[in-house]
């Protein structure tokens, strides 16, 4: 067995054992046929493809949405939660952002605090959509997270505060940038109006907290109670949720189920710091779930 073959078999461990036993030989033969003479390592593209495809096969994420889409949505949510929690817990994203943007210009700092909800939602949703192989959805949502947060806040942060940042924090946002870049390179680029709507959704969530932006409380954003409910976000959250559901629920209900499970959890992660934002995220999740139940399931796309 050559070194290349041995390494390909190692990559195939991402696939379930039964799949490897039945089709592993064929797949390995294909990879070897594609390789150059004397090649010892699979290319990065092939390695990533095998890992992602194997993972999809193992988690049944490559199955078309069928009658068991609700259970599949739970599975997607679990996988995404593990992935995202690993990143967030590892880099202490919340603390990095709190320490980073609070000292900035008051208006920009407050506004960026609220767009964090949209950015985190986009980050999470993009990951989930990517797991569901909804390339177009992942592209749009990752672009939303990337543009609404990384460019406007991260760039300003470095420019204005001289913040050096933590390597781990940079890794997290590199992941978002990579996800957005991957999504943007997919064939059939997203139509501009879709990206515009999604970007506007980030702004809607931020604007939903307008009273706090222009009349900050003495405790500031961070002093808000955990379960404070601001009626100003209800309508925008429902509008955003409806738009999201109409645009993506038709494609694959698994995504909607997974996001509806995850968004309230994300909203509950740091209640003391992001009270009103949590409520906004929870409302968004409720709106998405409610609308998704009513939205018709679409024909599968092959």
């Amino acid at each position, binding site marked *: 067995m050559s070194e290349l073959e041995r390494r390909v078999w190692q990559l195939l461990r991402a696939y379930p054992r039964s799949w490897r036993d039945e*089709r592993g030989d064929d797949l390995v033969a294909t990879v070897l046929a594609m390789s150059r003479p004397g090649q010892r390592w699979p290319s990065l593209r092939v390695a990533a493809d095998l890992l992602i495809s194997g993972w999809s096969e193992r988690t049944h994420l*490559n199955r078309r949405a069928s009658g068991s889409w609700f259970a599949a949505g739970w599975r997607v949510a679990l996988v995404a939660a593990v992935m995202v929690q690993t990143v967030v817990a590892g880099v202490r994203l919340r603390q990095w952002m709190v320490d980073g943007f609070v000292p900035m210009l008051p208006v920009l700092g407050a506004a960026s605090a609220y767009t964090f909800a949209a950015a985190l939602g986009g980050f999470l949703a993009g990951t989930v959509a990517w797991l569901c192989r909804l390339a177009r959805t992942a592209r749009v949502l990752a672009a939303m997270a990337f543009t609404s947060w990384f460019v406007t806040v991260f760039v300003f942060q470095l420019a204005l505060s001289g913040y050096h940042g933590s390597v781990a924090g940079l890794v997290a946002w590199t992941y978002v940038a990579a996800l957005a870049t991957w999504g943007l390179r997919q064939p059939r680029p997203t139509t501009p109006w879709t990206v515009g709507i999604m970007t506007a959704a980030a702004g809607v969530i931020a604007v939903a907290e307008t009273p706090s932006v222009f009349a900050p409380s003495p405790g500031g954003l961070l002093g808000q109670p955990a379960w404070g409910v601001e009626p100003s976000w209800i309508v925008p959250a429902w509008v955003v949720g409806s738009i999201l559901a109409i645009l993506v629920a038709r494609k694959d209900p698994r995504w909607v189920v997974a996001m509806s499970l995850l968004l309230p959890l994300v909203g509950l992660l740091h209640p003391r710091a992001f009270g009103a934002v949590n409520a906004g995220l929870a409302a968004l999740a409720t709106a998405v779930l409610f609308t998704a139940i009513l939205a018709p399931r679409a024909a599968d796309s*092959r």
Partner: protein
Amino acid sequence: MRRPTFFILSALAEKPRHGYGVIQRVLDLSDGDIRLAPGTLYGALERLHEDGWIVPDREEVESGRRRRYYRIEEPGREALRAEVARLRRDVGVGASVLKGSA
């Protein structure tokens, strides 16, 4: 129908092929535009098999490894014909519009 799927079915419509054969033929048919990665290809073949559009044709042993050949079935051919008809209609619309606006 997604473009890679269209070309996979087209490759198999000519004759039964194994995985690498499909990758090579799709690359030729698409003028190098579509480079299928092996994992993605086998996932697509699985889905097409589930839908009854393709079936395993035979297995051959080459260099000590099993190679599975796939062939297209009638539902797959029908789907391919329908897609070709749709694309022809779309091209006709585009050509007509461009001609009218010239």
